[in-house]
């Protein structure tokens, strides 16, 4: 890369050297523009469209770019396909640094241009690839069609063909747009303009009102007619295994403390019986009983809850609800255990956001699949699992502060959605 940048210096003094330089430019640009090798990189949806574009139907090979190199050292083009998260950002910067110059970047899809669907209320997505690396071509769309990507490639070709030895390719600089909030900015500018307009037009409006005291606009907007559809009754799903009442009665027999969540005053059996058949039974469980209930329903042949669907939690003002979803593969019934855990308010208020507020026994020795699920709950809510073999953050960096799915979570780079 370095050599040809000296070409003008060496060749210009020689008579006719200019033409040689121009010829070199022509050949080099021709080669560069027609043999753009992209890096195999993709994180999400756009990656599939990028793959589609290299497949038989669209065939990126027609442009000489089908050689997807998986090593960044042999690539020329970095197609940023898919959302960039804060955790991925250093890897992307490193990849970009490893690509030898001249290198080009196409930001494909809304996520890499501005954050796209994840632009507001988000603590983990980088708002645009420009923050990390310089971007040459933007291809909006979510995801863009393969043709749109080709259009981006052609746009890039035009850009490459403009380079010469005298104005060679140079490394650009990333642009910080991470705090840019286009919506609020536009609204703000407009509000200022509006104020000025109000002032300027106050007189004219008053005059207009005097002249036309009962002015009615001649324009009447027409509503789009919506098609009319009949109301359709809901067909309940088929269900297998024990009914909710049976399940509940059997569980209550063993653990008298279990209840269901209800506002009504009716006896609890009636409430259970009133649950629609297609909804699983969700019982409230005391934290102390939790482990023994799980052990019981797993080992008892009547329940035989051998399959763990999921573990998740819900954050309320003063307590967490941790929901363990279990199902029996043999019988087909489902049972949701909802553990209500009071938040530990003995922790001083300023430390609450960053500390574990509740604790419950881990069930990962009963269901190995619960291990990652419990890590997720720990990561997102800050619930401690006693006896968990490997309690680490799973989705977020280990030095991430706070627990994002709590309702009071704040993050310096999280912008609330304006509407």
């Amino acid at each position, binding site marked *: 890369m370095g050599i040809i940048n000296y070409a003008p210096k060496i060749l210009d003094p020689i008579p006719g050297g200019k033409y040689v330089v121009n010829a070199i430019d022509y050949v080099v640009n021709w080669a560069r523009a027609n043999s753009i090798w992209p890096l195999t990189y993709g994180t999400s949806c756009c990656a599939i469209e990028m793959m589609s574009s290299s497949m038989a139907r669209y065939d990126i090979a027609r442009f000489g770019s089908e050689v997807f190199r998986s090593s960044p050292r042999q690539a020329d083009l970095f197609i940023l396909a898919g959302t960039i998260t804060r955790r991925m950002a250093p890897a992307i910067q490193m990849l970009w640094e490893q690509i030898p110059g001249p290198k080009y970047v196409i930001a494909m899809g809304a996520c890499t241009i501005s954050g796209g669907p994840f632009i507001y209320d988000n603590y983990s997505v980088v708002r645009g690839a420009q923050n990390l690396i310089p971007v040459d071509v*933007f291809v909006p769309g979510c995801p863009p069609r393969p043709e749109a990507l080709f259009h981006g490639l052609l746009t890039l070709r035009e850009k490459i063909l403009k380079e010469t030895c005298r104005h060679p390719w140079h490394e650009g600089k990333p642009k910080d747009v991470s705090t840019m909030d286009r919506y609020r900015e536009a609204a703000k500018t407009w509000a200022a303009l509006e104020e000025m307009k109000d002032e300027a037009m106050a007189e004219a409006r008053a005059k207009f009102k005097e002249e036309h005291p009962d002015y009615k606009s001649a324009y009447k907007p027409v509503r789009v007619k919506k098609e009319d559809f009949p109301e359709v009754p809901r067909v309940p799903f088929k269900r297998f295994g024990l009914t909710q009442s049976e399940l509940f009665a059997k569980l209550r027999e063993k653990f008298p403390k279990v209840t269901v969540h209800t506002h009504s005053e009716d006896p609890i059996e009636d409430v259970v019986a009133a649950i629609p058949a297609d909804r699983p039974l969700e019982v409230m469980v005391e934290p102390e009983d939790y482990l023994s209930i799980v052990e019981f329903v797993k080992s008892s042949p009547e329940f035989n809850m051998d399959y763990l669907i999921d573990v998740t939690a819900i954050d309320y003002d003063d307590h967490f609800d941790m929901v363990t979803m279990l199902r029996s593969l043999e019988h087909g019934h489902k049972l949701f255990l909802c553990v209500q855990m009071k938040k530990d308010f003995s922790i001083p208020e300023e430390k609450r956001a960053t500390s574990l507020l509740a604790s419950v026994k881990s069930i990962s020795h009963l269901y190995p699949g619960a291990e990652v699920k419990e890590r997720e709950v720990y990561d997102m809510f800050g619930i401690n699992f006693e006896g968990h073999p490997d309690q680490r953050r799973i989705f977020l960096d280990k030095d991430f502060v706070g627990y994002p799915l709590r309702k009071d979570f704040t993050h310096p780079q999280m912008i609330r959605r304006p509407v």
Partner: protein
Amino acid sequence: MQENITLIQYFKRYLKRCITGPWSLMCGLSVSLKYFFDPRRIVTEQYPENRKTLKMHERFRGRLEMIEDQDGNNLCTACGMCERACPNASINVLATKNIAGKKVLGRYIYHFASCTQCGLCVEACPFGAIRMNQEFEVATTDPNSLEMILNKKEGQG
């Protein structure tokens, strides 16, 4: 994964594999030969060359645009339904007051950079003032050009 088998069994398996193996490979090769010599199977679209004939489907969701008549009048009443329906605030409906003091559309800003083309705004619009067009060649080198003002004129009223 070690099995206890006799030597004869081992050799039987070995010989069987020696025969079925190449045969299966020939099967594979025959498919690729078939595809190689049959140009009708090539399905490639020649994109930049077929611009004229390439048409998107009617429902294809490209860029958002306003439905305007010949004079550039639009149907928008600046009610802001689209703005509220948008999952990531890609639409600014900026209202102004016209000379009679009535609220009309002042500027309709569309942030194409963050638009996900879900089409919820079109669905939400009660007056049918906006639609998704068929444009897909939208690549640009300038991110600022992705912020567009869709209306040419202020709203009617």
